[in-house]
């Protein structure tokens, strides 16, 4: 199994993750990404045990999950991750927020900060909002998705999933297909996969491909058959219903015809192709049900499983300094 490349400064006692927050993949060096993935492995094992799944390392610490945009899966994943490490987890949902009462985002951030949390997990509909909040609070901030910008824990869990299935990331051909334009998952994955040495492709109708993808070292395809050729991993993205009724693509059925993942299309990929989807899936729109349910090829459930482990690792690593963990102070 691929291990973390050695950190050039580690010999001098510098810990391998110098960041205060996890705002995006863009800020991470390849060895820092690998370090987080390595750290996640132990939690995969613990989460699978039938005995009590509990570790006390975050005992007494308060984790606020501030979700300014609706989410079920990611919120639940972060909540379980915090609880399994012993943290006191509180959730602030969009309906409970004061933003509707006219409070500015920064005032909300200062209010949260005044409650002395030890970590804040934030999802927000605007790109850059999580960074803005991180500049105003005194504890680690984890980005659980900001606008179209980044969703770093999703990219990390995808990388962990790929590495466990394929044994490596470097050299793999990964096709990311669907609504690239609006996808923070795609943006985080482009950066993570490219920096770990994968060959990354973006496959989408031209209306859903943003400009400037060459800057990511990503190759764009508007022909899905060409984009899937010999792919080792196919990562499907969700296409929101309101975007396929004529705004970006003419109709769901036309989209499925040309950009849906079908058996016939998947046959162009490598024989041992791994199919992924960040969920929730639109069966019959972007992915055929039979493929989604084929556990030999589909890693969809495993991605959810890895999500908890990755989030546990991120919460653990980001709080090490404040917990006074040896070597991290």
């Amino acid at each position, binding site marked *: 199994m691929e291990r973390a490349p050695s950190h050039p400064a580690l010999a001098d006692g510098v810990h391998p993750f110098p960041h205060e927050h996890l705002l995006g993949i863009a800020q991470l060096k390849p060895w820092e990404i690998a370090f987080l993935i390595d750290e996640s492995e132990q939690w995969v094992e613990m989460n699978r045990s039938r005995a009590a799944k509990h570790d006390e390392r975050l005992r007494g610490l308060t984790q606020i999950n501030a979700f300014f945009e609706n989410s079920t899966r990611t919120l639940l994943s972060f909540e379980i991750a915090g609880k399994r490490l012993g943290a006191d987890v509180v959730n602030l949902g969009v309906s409970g927020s004061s933003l509707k009462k006219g409070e*500015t985002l920064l005032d909300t951030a200062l209010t949260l900060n005044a409650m002395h949390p030890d970590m804040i997990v934030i999802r927000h509909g605007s*790109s850059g909002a999580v960074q803005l909040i991180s500049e105003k609070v005194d504890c680690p901030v984890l980005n659980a998705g900001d606008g179209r910008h980044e969703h770093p824990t999703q990219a990390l869990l995808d990388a962990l999933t790929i590495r466990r299935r394929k044994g490596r990331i470097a050299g793999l051909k990964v096709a990311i297909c669907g609504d690239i334009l609006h996808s923070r998952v795609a943006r985080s994955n482009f950066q993570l996969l490219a920096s770990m040495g994968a060959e990354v492709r973006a496959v989408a109708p031209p209306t859903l491909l943003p*400009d*400037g993808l060459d800057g990511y070292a990503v190759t764009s395809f508007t022909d899905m058959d060409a984009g899937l050729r010999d792919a080792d991993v196919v990562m499907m993205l969700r296409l929101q219903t309101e975007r396929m009724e004529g705004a970006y693509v003419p109709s769901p059925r036309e989209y499925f015809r040309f950009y849906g993942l079908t058996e016939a299309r998947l046959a162009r990929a490598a024989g041992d192709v791994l199919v992924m989807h960040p969920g929730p899936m639109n069966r019959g729109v972007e992915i055929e049900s039979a493929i989604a349910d084929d556990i030999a090829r589909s890693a969809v459930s495993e991605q959810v499983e890895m999500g908890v482990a990755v989030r546990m690792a991120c919460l653990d690593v980001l709080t090490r300094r404040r917990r006074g963990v040896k070597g991290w102070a």
Partner: protein
Amino acid sequence: MTPAAPIAIINGRVICPASGQDGIATILLQDRMVAGIGHAEPPSHAQVIDARGLVVAPGLIDVGVFRAHPPACHAGGITRVVLMPDQSPPLDDPALVAYAQGSGKPDVWVHPLAAATRGLQGVELAEIGLAQAAGAVGVATGRRAIADARVMHRLLAYARAFGLTVVSHAEDAALTAGAVATSGEYATRLGLAAAPAFAEALAIARDCRLAEATGAALHIRQVTTAEGLAALLAARARGVDVTAGITPAHLLLNDMAVSGFRSFARLSPPLRHERDRLAVIEGVRSGAIDILASGHDPQSQEDKRQPFADARAGMAGAQTLLALGLGLVRDDVIDLPRLIAMLSLNPARRFGLVAGTLQLGAPADIAVFDEHAPWRIDGRMFHGAGNTPFDGLPTAGRVRMTIKGGELAWQC
């Protein structure tokens, strides 16, 4: 009010692009007018100002500001502004235009642009004839373009009859709806909703063609792209009466400035790719771009301390206009008289203002500045809101004195 004592500014380098004057001279201001220019001894009762080592120029005329804040204007050498109709409420009524026109006197004269359409909604023509009678020097589409070509066509035809220059915002409305950045690598990396740069060229081509069809005078408030500039020059070559402006921000910054989600760099139109920035500098050099303006549109902290896309577009520019403009002179893009023409004479000519010159009888609006004095831009020191993407930038060129209507309004 007793008439102010005459002021004689001696030993300064007097530059007046209208007359071609550029040299050390004495300028005498009396009865709110320029009363003499040359080498004669100043009268004994005059207040003498020694401007040795300084430049004496017509007071700057800032075209297309959204706020006319006298202290900020004076600190920037600005004595007149051409005000955008995007006020609260919009200047779509003659009474509002008349009020705006008087709002700055005596400190800074405000020459309002009337709203082209009611409520700046781009649907129904506003009373621009009555607005002209109330003091409007032109009409403007506001912060946005008029989306409907038919409305724009009628506006230009109607404005032509009154001899009013139409100031348009050159961004195709549909292509740029919801966009906060220019399409490209930076917008994609940051996950910002973006519009292609050619949205500007589309708007300029359309508006120029409509101006051609109607014979109207058109001023493109900001030309920020190579393609937009090409569309402008093509129209001008066909004889269209079109002029163009630009702000220092689009001459000095490119779309990289938004990295890190710096909301101070959220401008309208958005910052462009480096190749477009270089093209518009060439546009200034060649004379294709006539007017340099601050785009002064300060925003409150509440409106700027937001996630990038939720922050309001706009920056405080009045106090940095001259210094940043002088950068063009230092970089040999244009010479100092050309810069001064872009900041005073050209705006005056385009909007029919009796100003922008130092000829005998002209209003005694003067900016005296040290073109080399170094300073560091610090938004906290600004009058009013200090949101500027140039915060912290070392620059050179300080206004030492602003004289408005023959009276010393400001000095440092």
